[in-house]
């Protein structure tokens, strides 16, 4: 068992119900700090639900969730969530805001000084290889790849300690996806940020994650360091996936 410092999120005996149906039960997981954990599984297996339990959008029906050693608060979650970066499939940029506004709006609402915001924005643009001229553009003026980079910048703006990514790269073409994945890997290694990545793409999980959590049929069916899981895939569907991928 990892200590709380080594662990960015800890789920203990967690169950979540949707109406009368259990999405999953008895989930125990310790997601390592400073690394990327990929939550993998077929659609409907509850991957996204794991993310929403971590940032408090859902409360567990049984068990407990701790983030960075503290239980997820049940009130005033806004402050808590601002410490957790969040990016979703299709970038989800606000269409009426410029690139700069999309990225910095929450920092302004948090009352960051102007200089700090400007500096952080420039750093992030550089980190994600985005030209400064893009700041004043609207999302519809960007390419798909640029939109996803902006989405990453937005998730990182408030210097979060944990980053949650919900199938962030699934809606883009293969070549651009590869680019963004590389950019993300570089960025994550530089920042040493803990990240939880939900994906149904075993190749993406293999490329980006050091730790895997495999969900199927309402439970965690396998978990562990990526290489170990890939070397000895347990559930049939994973075996099939791994064999077709290699």
């Amino acid at each position, binding site marked *: 068992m990892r200590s709380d410092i080594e662990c960015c999120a800890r789920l203990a005996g967690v169950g979540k119900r949707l109406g009368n149906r259990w999405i999953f039960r008895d989930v125990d997981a310790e997601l390592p700090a400073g690394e990327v954990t990929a939550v993998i599984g077929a659609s409907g297996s509850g991957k996204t639900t794991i993310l*929403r339990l971590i*940032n408090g*959008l859902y409360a567990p029906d049984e068990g407990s969730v701790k983030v960075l050693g503290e239980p997820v608060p049940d009130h005033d*979650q*806004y*402050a*808590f*969530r*601002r410490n*957790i*970066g*969040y990016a*979703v*499939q*299709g970038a*989800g940029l*606000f*269409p*009426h805001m410029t690139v700069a506004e999309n990225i910095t*709006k*929450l920092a302004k*609402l948090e009352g960051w000084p102007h200089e700090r915001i400007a500096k952080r924005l420039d750093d992030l643009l550089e980190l994600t290889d985005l030209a400064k001229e893009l700041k004043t553009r*609207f999302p*519809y003026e960007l390419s798909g790849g640029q939109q996803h980079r902006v989405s990453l910048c*937005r*998730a990182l703006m*408030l210097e979060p300690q944990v980053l*949650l990514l919900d199938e962030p790269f699934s809606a883009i073409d293969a070549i651009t996806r590869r680019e963004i994945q590389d950019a993300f890997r570089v960025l994550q290694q530089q920042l040493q940020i803990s990240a939880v990545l939900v994906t149904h793409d075993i190749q993406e999980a293999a490329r980006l994650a050091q730790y895997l959590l495999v969900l199927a049929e309402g439970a965690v069916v396998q978990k562990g360091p990526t290489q170990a899981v890939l070397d000895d895939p347990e559930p049939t569907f994973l075996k099939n996936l791994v064999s077709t991928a290699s």
Partner: protein
Amino acid sequence: MKPLLLGALAMVLALVVAIAGCSRTETYVIGSKLHTEQHILAEVLAQTLESAGYQVDRKLNLGGTKIVFNALATGEVHAYVEYSGTIQEVILKSSRTLSLQEISADLAEQGIETLEPLGFNNSYAFGIHEDLAKETNLTKISELRDHPELRFYFSHEFLEREDGYPSLKRHYGLTQDADGIEHALALRAIVEQEIDVTDLYTTDAEIEHFDLKVLEDDLQFFPKYLALPLVRADLPVEVKQLLNVAANSLTDAAMANLNYQVHIEQQPAATVARNFLATLNVKSNYVAETIGDKLIDRTLEHLFLAAVALLAATTIALTISIAVYSQPSLSKAIAYGAGLLQTIPSLALLALMVPLFGIGKLPAIVALFLYSLLPIIRTTVTALTTVDPILVQVADGMGYTRGQTLRYIQIPLSLPAILAGIRISAIICIGTATLAAFIGGGGLGDLIFQGLQLDDTRLIVIGAGAAALMAIVVELMFETIEKFVVPGHIAALAKVSGNQLAT
């Protein structure tokens, strides 16, 4: 949310106080129904008071006996001229003929005093061509018995009502049968001598115009419609004395002549009243408004009505929408409620406001306000609930508070649809405000109804044209606002859904 709600409430309160304040004046209010004769008589009363140094507020073109009488009963109008037959049937609802003393006594119980009758009786009568009158020496209805050869044509209502021709025929023992005809056609037909006898009103402007002879109702079949000024009993004695200015000074023919000057000669009622007052040695300096003055004045009134109603409706509707949009069943209930209001015909809604708020601008504004709620609520609720759920979810996940999500994401993205809703309401307000004249609210409807009443197409076109122009200008104004407020690509994105909402 709370400051927004409080702000809205404060604004509405301020408006109500301001409007209520406007209508409480020290001046005397003279009313009249939507009718040429009423208009002239109201001017006679108004200019008499003005020539004695009093301030007068004219509430002309009110939409009916009930509206103007109730305004008198509640003290919103201080004086107007009514007819004894109307008082008996419509106001006192008496089935038998009441004497003037009885009428006075009954009205006194309601705090209303009847002044001296003006002298004329605006009742039904029979008219024949002057040439025929000379030929036959006819002067009275009873003499028609001796002329079974004459052709009788009456208006359909008079012909068919039980207390119309069938009853009169028995009363006078006449033998002639009659046919129905349109009133306007009947008068022309008499001139052409195609028909001989028809029914008319004793003070019709057309009597003089078409050289008609009125036959006397010598066996008193028709109820009397004696013109009686009604005033608030609590008016100062000297004011009541002044309002008695025209007591017993108008015969049927004299009143018909005044109507003729306005209706046929197209003189302003105010001018005709001033000239009449001169014959009573009352010197009035009142100058009838020119069409230009009227147009400016009524346009400003119209804008005021529409703008105040729209502002209040926008504030309230947005507040309600934002408060309820996240609860589907509640917002549905509210939309149904607002929709129900919309199904009430606008004229009926205006009339419904009179018992609650009296006459004048306030009830008109309240009615317009109620009318404008639905488009804004419906478009706003729909727009807020149809913002891309992914964006709301991202905002939630990133740590935007609910208020921040609403303010920075949902409202800006809904803005094109919200503006479209406000724009629809603005156009409804401008259109419906033309009916405000019916309850003394003023506006461009004054010109339109006066035009209808005087058969003056020019006035109707000017009034309706100005209202239409106002609608177009407002439409263009909203387009401009939209360009400034809504970033171009959002407007383009929203165009499809916005247009759907607008229809």
